[in-house]
């Protein structure tokens, strides 16, 4: 498959969920899919997966800051030289995204990282143990959030 065919195929797959997605083309080899219905995320990923477009490259968390009070989670699928981005918006407090680890085993580490760095709940993730942060890291402090204050850790009992 060349990149044009991959793009067409991906659009066709995502097109089946046109009521739940907004598709845009930021760059020639890239499509950006805004998934507005969170429940449809996993079915779309399954759809990509069965057509062998489901090589998950990374999951990126984006904190849009306290003003917007929302966070974005970006799932980048990279078959060939095409980048398919699925974009999900969730509230900053108590936001949750469904886990992909049932569909894509390698998603587990990315999701654990997302969970501990941003405090996003991953529903259905079996192993929520810490992967990177130290054992004594305080609960409820998420370092990659925009309002994370490193100085607050200095006050933490016994250091980190």
């Amino acid at each position, binding site marked *: 498959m060349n990149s044009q065919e991959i793009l067409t195929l991906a659009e066709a797959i995502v097109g089946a969920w046109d009521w739940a997605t907004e598709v845009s083309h930021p760059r020639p080899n890239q499509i950006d899919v805004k998934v507005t219905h969170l429940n449809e995320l996993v079915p779309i990923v399954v759809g990509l997966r069965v057509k062998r477009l489901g090589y998950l490259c990374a999951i990126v968390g*984006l904190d849009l800051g306290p003003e917007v009070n929302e966070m974005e989670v970006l799932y980048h699928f990279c078959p060939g030289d095409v980048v398919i981005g699925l974009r999900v918006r969730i509230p900053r407090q108590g936001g949750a995204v469904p886990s992909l680890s049932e569909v894509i*085993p*390698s998603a587990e580490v*990315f999701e654990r990282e997302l969970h501990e760095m941003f405090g996003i709940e991953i529903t259905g993730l079996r192993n929520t143990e810490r992967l990177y942060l130290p054992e004594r890291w305080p609960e409820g402090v998420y370092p990659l959030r925009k309002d994370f204050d490193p100085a607050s850790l200095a006050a933490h009992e016994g250091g980190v």
Partner: protein
Amino acid sequence: MPENLAPKRFTIPIGPQHPALKEPGHFQFTVDGEVVTSAYVRLGYAHRGIEKAAEERTWIQNLYLIERICGICSHIHAMAYCLAVESLANVEAPPRAQAIRVLVAELERIHSHFLWIGVSAHEAGFETLFMYSWRDRETVMDLLEGLTGNRVNYSANLLGGVKFDLDQAQMDSIRKGVDFLEERTHHYLDVIMHDSTFLQRTRGIGVMTTAQAEVMGAVGPTARASNVKRDLRVEAPYSAYKTFPVQMALDTRGDLEARFEVRLNELFESFRLIRQILDNLPEGPLVARIPRRIPAGEAVVRLEAPRGEVYYFVKGNGSDKPERLKVRTPTICNLTSVIRLAVGHQLADVPMILAGIDPCFSCNDRMVQVRDAATDSQKMLTWEQLRQHGIDFYRSKAK
């Protein structure tokens, strides 16, 4: 032996500090006799909070921070970051700069693979191969030093180009070095393919099938040894690979021996590519002008590092600092896949299996907390405060 202390089944901790690991990582292997029955991994011992730190530094300062994500594949990280920033700013580096970037990247690949041969030979207990491969690695380190002024962390990249040009004398020394290394690579390929005692430790060990590699998301030589056609230099050529194409080295067996062969066969492509670039080096300037404030936007860059695919996501907000930088390094993909392979193997094979993916923990562990004097914002601790904190902490502990 007290009852509560007597282990029923052994859990062998490997790391964070262990002779088999050159970097800190923690693994637990439950063994029944000599056979591993379960495996567990914990990372984060080399976390430096680079993703967060990058948000506090300017685009230019970040270049050198990014380069220090990994000591071995430093160039490819800096290159990925440069490509991402350049794509945000809509600037393209001049062709000569791109060729030099790829040249350094390939030299770095040679250096990394030679290093890896040595490390795996050491894990297997073949010290002579270790010593000789590292001796020969000095050749490529010297080439890189001559070219860029440093043996590691070359900082050849600039936003919009490269720092260093090549002159005739350097080209000649690179050609000479590459000839020598090619001859040595033939020799090492012969050793790893034909040495009976070494083959006992690699053949049929840690087999990963094509389907497994795809499902687990293995990348780089580890994936290619399982016949997964995943090489970004071929799949999605970037920078000068568009004009200087390479061939993919593949193997179908998926065991450790295949990983060795794929890596060494890849080197021949690197040697060829380096000669080709030297013969056809485009003329022109080295740097394209790039603004200090990078326009807002998002960019995804994927490059083929020696260990596999590195992924960079950069989001700019129009200021002189990035809004978000996300790095995904190949080791995290390979580690999760390979750790499952260890189950059912002999304990003695575990170091080899781990080494087989060429793990790089410092690449993996990047994020977390920054305590930094670099920015003098009030939120941050200065070094002085941090030092004082440390003194107080241990004083209170001593009491």
